[in-house]
């Protein structure tokens, strides 16, 4: 059967969550692979969430926040902007393809944009194939070789 990736979506309550809601109320079609969790602000996203999700079986994690300058808490998205690249470096350390983690800015009125991001990210994860972190015996498994991003 075709591989259906499971993606965790961490959406900030004021912009991306509202944007996603708009996409829904506007009846936009997009793949259901992203399971969303609402946080008050993209700054709330703790790298731990991302790692735990992958351990729990997520094939990809999508973090969305307000456009810089629009954040309801003024600077939350800037903190997220700093943490995500660090987390990507961490994933690399574990041998996980950093492209499985993606940060996007989606404002409250950009329903359409949310739809495109989710569609595109799903295809990208599908191409990368399942992560199946639990099957790894960490010691023996060779590090996953990944082409240039």
């Amino acid at each position, binding site marked *: 059967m075709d591989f259906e990736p499971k993606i965790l979506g961490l959406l900030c309550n004021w*912009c991306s969550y509202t944007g996603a809601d708009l996409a829904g109320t506007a009846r936009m079609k997009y793949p259901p692979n992203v399971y969303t969790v609402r946080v*008050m602000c993209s700054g*709330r996203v703790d790298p731990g969430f991302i790692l735990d999700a992958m351990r*729990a079986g997520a094939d990809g994690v999508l973090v969305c926040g*307000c456009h810089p300058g629009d954040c*309801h808490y003024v*600077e939350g998205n800037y*903190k997220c902007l700093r943490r995500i690249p660090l987390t990507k470096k961490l994933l690399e350390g574990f041998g996980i393809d950093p492209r499985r983690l993606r940060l996007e800015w989606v404002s*409250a009125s950009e329903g359409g944009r949310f739809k495109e991001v989710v569609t595109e990210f799903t295809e990208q994860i599908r191409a990368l194939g399942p992560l199946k972190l639990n099957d790894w015996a960490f010691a023996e498994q060779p590090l996953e070789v990944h082409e240039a991003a």
Partner: protein
Amino acid sequence: MIKVTIDGRDIEVKEETTILNAARELGIKIPTLCYSEFLEPYAVCRICLCEVVRGKRSRLVTACNYPLRDASVSILTNSARVRNLRKLNLELLLAQAPAAKIVQDLAAEYGVTKTRFPIKNPDEKCILCGLCVQVCENLVGAGAIGFSSRGSKREVSTPWGVEPETCILCGACAHFCPTGHIVMTEEADERILHSELTLGPNAAISIPFRQAIPNVPRIDVEHCIHFKTGGCELCSKVCPKDCIDYQMKDEIEDIDVGAIVVATGFQDFDPTPLKQYGYGKYANVLSSIEFEQMNNAASPTGGAIVLENGEEPRSVAILHCIGSRDENNHKYCSRVCCMYALKFAHLIKEKTTAEVYQLYIDMRAFGKGYEEFYHRLLEEGVNVIRGKGAEIAPIGGKFGEEGLLVRCEDTLISKFREIPVDMVVLCTALEARDDSADLARKLNISKGADGWFIEAHPKLAPVSTTTDGVFLAGVCQGPKDIPDAVAQGTAAAGQAMKLMTVGELFLDAAYAAITDEICSGCRICNGLCPYNAISFLEDKKVSEVNAAMCKACGTCAAACPSGAITARHFTDDQIYAQIEAIFA
């Protein structure tokens, strides 16, 4: 005080009062030509000469500037000797300035009708009284005109007779000139420029327009002479309550408030970029706001609808949706144009006999009584054409006469039409103000792609914003007409009152908290909080969150290395539980 007698009547006056003023108190009128109460007496026309008799010696002095100092002096303002002097003086003046009406009148008063002296220039009016030079030099302070050459060749002129740069066209010289020798000529053309109609007088000090709040005059610093030359101050001289203070400046005040209602409104769309409509290029193409101003009773045209050459239009075309419902400009519908366009049609029908053409896409008469108004207009003979105005072109080419050609497609009869009209009114779109982006950032509210501010929730909280205490009212939240704007205004006020009447602020349940035992005092979270809600307790060497200021964004919780901060309603465990559930 000293006692003097004037023409036999006694009077007591202050020292140094001039004879002219003393006589005026007695109601005795002494003729003057070169005197003005606003200026230092120049005493050159000598028409106010009177006899001052002390004992048997009599002396002739000018009443306008002779200071009365010693008492027991009798003054004759109309003795035979004085009258003869004035007669000869006037005869000389008639020869010098035959066309000066004030001299002719005064001369007639003294029975002098013609002059025995040769007249140099029959239409000369200037009597060289120097009032204009003095007012320009001392009162206005510009010093643009003065006396040149000497003796009988003396004349008032600008330096070297060329146009002076210091002249500020205040017209004071023309105002003070007693003989009308100096007149202000209006060189501007007679056309009525619709784009420059203003609702109030454009004097340096005026009430901007009738309904201005506060309804008091204010000084236009650009045009007021005082701010240019330090002179004039005529307005403070005539103000009975002496309330003019030239030192007043705009002040910025910081006021602490509990709530903010944002009602910053809109600006109208500038149709100039839409070259096809010829706004700013052809005469008589007006924007809706210009047409509105022209109709106002306080406008220079007094409310009359006139073309640029001042005549009444015979036909007017009103084009809807200029800049609205337009892919290249604003996709949204500005909601109010249809109804005010119909109002315009009604005004034109009422005030003039012109034909009216409404070019619309959809007639959105959505409000209570709006549809009935629309039908009434149809009965009044308004021609409605379903088709957006495509282009305006000058008639000149075709019918050789003035006027404009409106090209459009009448989709109901699917025909392409060209309608010759005298005037075109463009119903321009409502758009967000240029500075709304800055305001949004300042107030921490968000702005949609269409530029209007975003309400907390379109249905559940239309007047409040995502920031507590900041509310929205009026068009700044989206195009709406006056009834809706008033309703929203009242709602926003209600919301604000709610905060104030309760007196306490209900904190959201969600805010962060630090457990002292786990906190290692690393102070990473201190600088993190955008609201400075986290402070460090020196004594206990731990950080602490001020619940009232915390907005519960959770950024600090994510950053705390030891997990000492729990974001109450979004604790880590809750989120982990959701993740586990998703991937279980």
